[in-house]
């Protein structure tokens, strides 16, 4: 064993020896007891919340590196925020190397669990839900890592979010797997982010199943390199209940996979069925923007080898009924707006849409459905676009999976 390895082992042992578990039982005054534990924790510690129901009047927050917050299991440890009086989320994490796992969080007034500017942030075996069903007054996001890096979301269930159940924004190196998003406006959304693998998830009964967006005017833009594979994107049939003004309020009910702007997005080997607007919808960002560094076009996209069931029979789009009728009753599995021009320029787009038929609406301008001049082809483009490399998380983080 070389000296580096010896040192490493010594450090690991030291960490393990000093690490302690701060146990907090359910019961009165949970706010102060849990928050105090979150403040007292030292790097390496575990904050263990006991079985039962914890009721909070304010948001919780954690700002210590390398702390695990764990419950006794989903539906066994329940954090209720129904009586919340302040703060924008249930739990805010602003430190690195944090894992939140094995608990249920309910009825936050704003977002469920948010991480801001956190590296190695993991959400494992969690349920985040709004218990009154889909409602406009529910919080926006269930799990919400933003401006974070090395993000793991594994075995997480989110239901009822009035924006996206699982939302990753302005982040990089991301894995979302084995999770379930249902009865949200958007099931899973990757926005203004790069290097994301989204696989083995179920997105069902949302308005939109899985979304990959890139939006202008944000500190992090130019989302790219996302793989959406081996997911079940089925029966997304909850009418869109997002408050107007939010970008997801424009997601047509029954959108399976919706991709907007972005670069190098690969959608493959998913099961996509029961989505009334479209199986896979690919569009340009269509609203005005004055950010010269922003490209609103989808570029270098691949859609291949997915299993499509019935989709697109009643597109919830302006003129959707006529569109479907013109296509012989329902939309083909892939719908692309075909926009290749924007105020900043024109691009020759490289796409490989293998799963046909593909409806290319050939719109001349983003969002301008009236300019549609649809053509249906068995496929679009040709193979040859390189797939993004698999996302690799730090080993310790990847091992957290249950």
């Amino acid at each position, binding site marked *: 064993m070389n000296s580096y390895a010896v040192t490493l082992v010594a450090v690991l042992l030291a960490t393990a020896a000093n690490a302690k578990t701060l146990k907090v039982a359910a019961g009165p005054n949970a706010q102060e007891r849990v*928050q105090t534990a*979150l403040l007292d924790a030292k790097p390496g510690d575990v904050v263990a919340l006991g079985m039962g129901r914890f009721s909070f009047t304010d948001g919780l927050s954690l700002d210590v590196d390398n702390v695990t917050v764990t419950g006794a299991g989903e539906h066994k440890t329940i954090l209720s925020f129904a009586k919340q009086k302040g703060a924008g989320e249930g739990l805010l994490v602003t430190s690195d190397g944090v894992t939140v796992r094995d608990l249920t969080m309910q009825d936050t007034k704003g977002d469920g669990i948010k991480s*801001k500017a956190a590296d190695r942030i993991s959400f494992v075996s969690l349920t985040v839900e709004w218990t009154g069903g889909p409602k406009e007054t529910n*919080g926006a996001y269930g799990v919400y890592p933003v*401006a974070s890096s090395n993000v793991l979301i594994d075995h997480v269930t989110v239901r009822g979010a009035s924006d996206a159940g699982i*939302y990753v924004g302005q982040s990089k190196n991301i894995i979302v797997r084995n999770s379930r998003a249902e009865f949200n406006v958007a099931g899973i959304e990757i926005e203004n982010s790069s290097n994301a693998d989204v696989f083995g998830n179920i997105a069902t009964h949302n308005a939109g199943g899985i979304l990959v967006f890139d939006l202008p005017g944000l500190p992090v833009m130019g989302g790219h390199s996302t793989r959406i594979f081996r997911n079940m994107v089925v029966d997304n049939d909850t009418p869109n209940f997002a*408050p*107007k003004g939010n970008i997801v309020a424009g997601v047509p009910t029954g959108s399976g996979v919706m991709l907007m702007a972005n670069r190098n997005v690969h959608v493959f080997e998913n099961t996509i069925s029961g989505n009334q607007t479209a199986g896979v919808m690919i569009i340009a960002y269509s609203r005005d923007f004055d950010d010269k560094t922003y490209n609103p076009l989808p570029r270098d996209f691949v859609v291949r080898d997915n299993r499509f069931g019935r989709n697109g029979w009643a597109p919830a789009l302006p003129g959707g009924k006529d569109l479907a009728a013109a296509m012989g009753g329902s939309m083909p599995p892939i719908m692309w707006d075909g926009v290749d021009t924007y105020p900043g320029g024109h691009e020759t787009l490289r796409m490989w849409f293998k799963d046909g038929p593909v409806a290319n609406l050939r719109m001349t301008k983003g969002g301008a459905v009236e300019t549609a001049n649809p053509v249906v082809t068995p496929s679009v483009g040709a193979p040859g676009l390189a797939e993004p490399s698999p996302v690799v998380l730090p080993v310790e983080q990847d091992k957290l999976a249950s």
Partner: protein
Amino acid sequence: MRRLVALVAAVLILGVAPAPVALDLLLAETPAPTLSDYHLFTDASGRVPNAGLTPYGLNTPLFSDYSEKSRLLYLPPGARATYREIGVLDFPVGTTLVKTFAYPADLRRPSLGLRSIETRLLIHKSQGWVALTYVWNTGQTQAVLKRAGARLPVSFVDLKGARQNLDYAVPNQNQCKECHSLSGSLSPIGPKARNLNGEFTYTSGRENQLTHWSRLGNLVGAPDPKVAPRTAAWTDERAPLEDRARAYLDGNCGHCHNAAGMASNSGLFLNLEEADPAARGIGRRPVAAGRGSGNLDFDISPGHPEASILVYRMKSREPGVMMPELSRSMVHTEGVALIEAYLKSLPAR
């Protein structure tokens, strides 16, 4: 014998000199359990500052549910702050900013019957700033450290004579950082040259704060206040509407809504230094507002305060909707009126 008598007489006349501020405790790793341990005040109820503390005010402060806030600057003996034109003044290690939140029984008589709720400390330690808060007992005889936050019932009569009851929120230690965060490090917000550049009524009379601090030796390098930057006082009706409104947004939103703040990911920047109208919210669509959008399309719809998310969230008292997220549970009617007037004045598109 005569000397002893003289000594006793001197002590009787002067009283026993109060213990100086306990700088060692301020800089200790473990915070003191009670505020009085630091000797920042000479009385038990924290109304009389010790020697070495200088009271100050801000041209445009954060609205905190109509509480009266009194601020003190402590500098270690011989230490001084260095002037900076932009951002917070350069304060030496040991600097402590002391802020007490209190309510009078009746806002129309703000100096009467003041009840202190909490006293917050921002201490500049060698490794950075640390935030602590001490909550006062009902007898107003002791303030104890409260790290995990608290909710306290507060009642007062407002400016219109109506009784107001609220659940005052003492922030937890992390929440201090949510507002006081610049690129992830804790930092003071208020004592910037531009926000201190105004007059304050000292026991010795009115004087510009930058001048006063320079004269006391608290501050070096400050130019004549006339050439130093100055944040408008949001209440100053002689100042241009835009200056007042932007000062208000800077003081109430800009600490999170700036490129290095907690809300950096929103892309909405309301600090005074922001030059881009779109980043300041004008014609800007929300990103992660959720139900905070109130079914409106733009953060600021110029000419239309009623169609602006900014105003909607300022008027809300609902967590998840209201802004700021921390520090308020009431609507700041006067602040809302100012911002509404400002948005109305912007040319509609």
